[in-house]
C-alpha cells in the first residue's frame, strides 16, 4: 500500500474505533458543547489505553503508539470529527514527555502508567497572580530543607486543580540570578498538607480554573524534575512540543457546523429572514478563515514531517483560529442571546424552564473569550510575529 492509501486506511480505522468505542453519553457532552471533566476524560482514556492508543505522542517503549506527526494529526482530527473528547493534555502531552526526556527511571516507573491508563490526573502550576504572560517573573518559593523542598506561594488559573491528583509546578529556587535561571520544576501531590485549592469563578459559569495556595508544603526532592534551577528549560521543552497543538482545526469545524444547525433551527421562518441571512453570511466568512487555517495546519505538519523549522507557523495558526472561533461563538450568541442570555443563572423555583435549553451557547461565548488570552495571548503572539517580520 502506498502512503496515501495507508493514511486513508488509518483514518478509517480511527473513525471506526471512535464511533464504536467512545461512549455515546461522552460524545453527547462534546456534541452539546458541554463542559468536559475528569469523569468524561478518564473513562475515554482508559478505553484508548486498552486499545493501545493511550499515548499517540509517546515512543513505543513507554507505552506510546510511536506514530509520526502526520498520524497523530489524523488521530486528533478524526476524534474531533466524531465528537470524541480531545485527550486530556496535562499528563499525556505536557508532563509525560518531560518525564520521558528528563525524568529518572524511578519517576518514569512511578508516573507514566497512571497517565497512560487515566488513573492519575495532572494539572499545571505555572501562572501566578504576578506572572501571567510574563511567566519568568513567578515568585512561589521553594527552599531546600534536608530531603525536602518547602514551598510557599500561590498559583493561579490552575485548570482542573479541583479534580487533579498532582500538579507539575514551577517554583523559584534562586532569587540571585537571571529570572529564568532560578526556576525549578517539582511534582507536587495535591493531597499534601498546606495546599488549599479554591475555585476561581469565571464568567462562563463553568468551574475550570482555581487558585492554589501553598503554605509550608513539603515536597520530597525526589519529586524534582532534572536539576535544580533548570526548570525553565523543562517548561520550555514542554511548550515547544505543544507548538503544533493549533494544527488541528477539526474541533473548530465541528463547532461551526453545530452553530450553523443552531442558526437554522433558531431562526427558521420568514420573520427571521434578515437575521438568519446575516448570520449565515458571517458563518461563511468564518468557514473561509478556518479553511485557510486548516491549510496552514497541514503545512505545519508537513514541515515537522520534513524536519523543517516551524518558524512563525504556530503563531499564525493561533492568530488565525482563536479570533475565528470567538466569532463563531458570537454568531451563536446573536442567535440565542435574547432567549437565553436573559436566563443565565437560576435564582429560585422549580417551575417551567428550570433547564434552559441552549444555555451552553452563552456559556461558550463567555468561555471563548479565553481563547485569545491563554496559551500566549493574541497580543503576545503578535509581538512574536512582529519581531520576526521586522527583524527587531
Amino acid at each position, binding site marked *: 500500500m502506498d502512503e496515501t492509501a495507508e493514511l486513508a486506511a488509518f483514518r478509517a480505522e480511527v473513525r471506526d474505533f471512535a464511533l464504536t468505542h467512545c461512549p455515546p453519553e461522552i460524545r453527547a457532552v462534546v456534541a452539546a458543547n458541554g463542559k468536559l471533566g475528569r469523569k468524561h476524560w478518564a473513562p475515554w482514556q482508559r478505553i484508548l489505553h486498552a486499545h493501545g492508543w493511550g499515548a499517540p505522542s509517546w515512543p513505543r517503549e513507554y507505552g506510546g503508539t510511536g506514530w509520526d506527526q502526520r498520524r497523530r494529526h489524523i488521530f486528533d482530527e478524526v476524534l474531533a470529527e466524531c465528537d470524541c473528547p480531545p485527550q486530556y493534555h496535562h499528563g499525556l502531552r505536557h508532563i509525560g514527555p518531560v518525564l520521558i526526556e528528563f525524568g529518572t527511571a524511578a519517576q518514569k516507573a512511578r508516573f507514566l502508567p497512571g497517565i497512560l491508563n487515566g488513573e492519575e490526573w495532572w494539572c499545571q502550576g505555572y501562572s501566578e497572580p504576578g506572572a501571567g504572560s510574563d511567566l519568568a517573573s513567578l515568585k512561589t518559593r521553594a527552599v531546600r530543607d534536608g530531603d525536602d523542598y518547602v514551598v510557599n506561594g500561590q498559583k493561579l488559573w490552575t485548570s482542573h486543580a479541583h479534580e487533579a491528583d498532582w500538579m507539575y509546578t514551577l517554583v523559584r529556587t534562586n532569587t540571585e540570578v537571571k529570572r529564568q535561571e532560578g526556576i525549578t520544576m517539582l511534582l507536587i501531590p495535591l493531597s499534601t498538607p498546606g495546599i488549599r485549592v479554591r475555585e476561581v469563578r469565571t464568567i462562563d459559569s463553568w468551574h475550570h480554573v482555581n487558585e492554589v495556595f501553598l503554605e509550608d508544603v513539603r515536597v520530597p526532592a525526589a519529586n524534582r524534575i532534572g536539576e535544580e534551577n533548570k526548570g525553565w528549560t523543562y517548561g520550555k521543552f514542554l511548550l515547544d512540543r505543544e507548538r503544533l497543538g493549533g494544527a488541528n482545526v477539526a474541533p473548530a469545524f465541528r463547532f461551526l457546523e453545530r452553530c450553523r444547525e443552531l442558526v437554522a433551527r433558531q431562526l427558521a421562518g420568514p420573520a427571521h429572514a434578515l437575521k438568519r441571512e446575516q448570520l*449565515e*453570511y458571517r458563518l*461563511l*466568512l468564518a*468557514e*473561509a*478563515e478556518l*479553511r*485557510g*487555517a*486548516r*491549510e*496552514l495546519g497541514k*503545512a505545519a505538519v508537513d514541515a515537522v514531517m520534513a524536519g523543517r523549522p516551524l518558524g512563525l507557523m504556530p503563531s*499564525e495558526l493561533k*492568530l*488565525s483560529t482563536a479570533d475565528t472561533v470567538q466569532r463563531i461563538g458570537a454568531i451563536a450568541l446573536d442567535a440565542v442571546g435574547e432567549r437565553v442570555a436573559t436566563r443565565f443563572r437560576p435564582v429560585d423555583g422549580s417551575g417551567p424552564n428550570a433547564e434552559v435549553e441552549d444555555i451552553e451557547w452563552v456559556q461558550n461565548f463567555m468561555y471563548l473569550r479565553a481563547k485569545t488570552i491563554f496559551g500566549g495571548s493574541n*497580543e503576545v*503572539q*503578535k*509581538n512574536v*510575529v*512582529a519581531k*520576526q*517580520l*521586522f*527583524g*527587531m
Partner: protein
Amino acid sequence: MAFEPKPMLPGDTFDAARRFAEASALKLARLHDPAARAAELATQWAAVLELGWAGTLVPEACGGAEGTLLDLAALAEGAGSAGLALPLAATCAVAPTLLAGQDALLADLAAGRLQPCIVLTGLSAEAGRLSGRAVGVETPPAPSHALVAAGEALYLLDLAGIGFTRHERIDGRLTLDLEVQGVPATLLHADAAALIRRARDLGALLTCVEAVAAMGTLIQQTIGYLLARQQFGAALASFQALRHRVAEMYVAYRNLTGLVQAALAEPSWQNIAFAKLRLGEAGRFVAEQAIQVHGGMGMTEELPASRLARRVLMAEFEYGDRHAQAARLLAA
C-alpha cells in the same frame, strides 16, 4: 532580516514575470496622464504577447505552450507581486477556457491576433445579434474582439467599427464601456453555461493568486517603510500599535495564502469561491491598513505601496465579489 514573502510557486517563471512587472511599474510610475499610461501599457502588452504568455494554456497544436494551471499561476504570481496592470487572467485563463475546442481561435489567441476582452454581463442576444450595455470591462489596450456571454450562449463580437470608451481602473488597468444595439456576432456555443462558469472560476482563482502575491509585497513594503521612517525620535517600527497591525496583516495574508494554495491544488468551484470570499475580507483589510500605517504617504498616487493596495482592493470586484461568492456557496 525583515520579512520577504515566499512565493507559492517559485521558479524561473515566477522570477521572469516578476522582473517584467517590476520594470513595467517603474515606467508607468513616471507617467501622469492616463492616455500616456495607456500608450505605455500598449507597448508592454505587445511585449507580453511577444513572450507568448497568452498561449500558456493553449495546446501546442494551436501554437501554445500547453502549460498547466500551475504554470500560469506562477506567471500570475510573479506578475501580481509587482501589480502588473495588464489583463493576464482574462487573456491567459478566461479566454482559452471559453475557446476550448475552437482551434483556429485558440491559435489566433496564442499568436496575439485575437485580443479579446471578456464580457460576462450586460449584453443579451436575439437571433444572433447582440444588444445592451457592458461597463468597466477589463480589456487589452487595443481589443480586437469581445468574447460575450449572453445568457447561456457564447458569442464572438468583432469590435472593428464598434465604438467604445476606455477608462483606467483604480489599479491602473484599462477597461472599456460598450453599448450595442442589434449588432451581428458569431455564435461559438449555444449551450456554454458550464464553460462560462468554469472560465469565470479560473479567472477568480488567477485573480486570487495575483492579489495574494500583491499582498505579500505590500506587507514587505509597509514593513520597510515603518523601519525607515522616524517620528518622535524613533523608527515607526518600534511602536507596538503599528507592529501589531502589521502582524494582523501578515496573518490575514498567510491565511488567504492557505486557501489559494488549496484552490490551486484542487480547483473546485467551492475552493475557489472560499478563496475569493476570503480575499474580499483579507485583501480589503490589508490594503486599508497598508494605506493607514503609511500615513499621508499612503494617500499619494506614486507610492508603490498605495498602487499595490489599489490593485488588491480592485481584485475583490473581478469575477464575483465576496457577496456573489457567498450567494453561490449559500445556495449550494
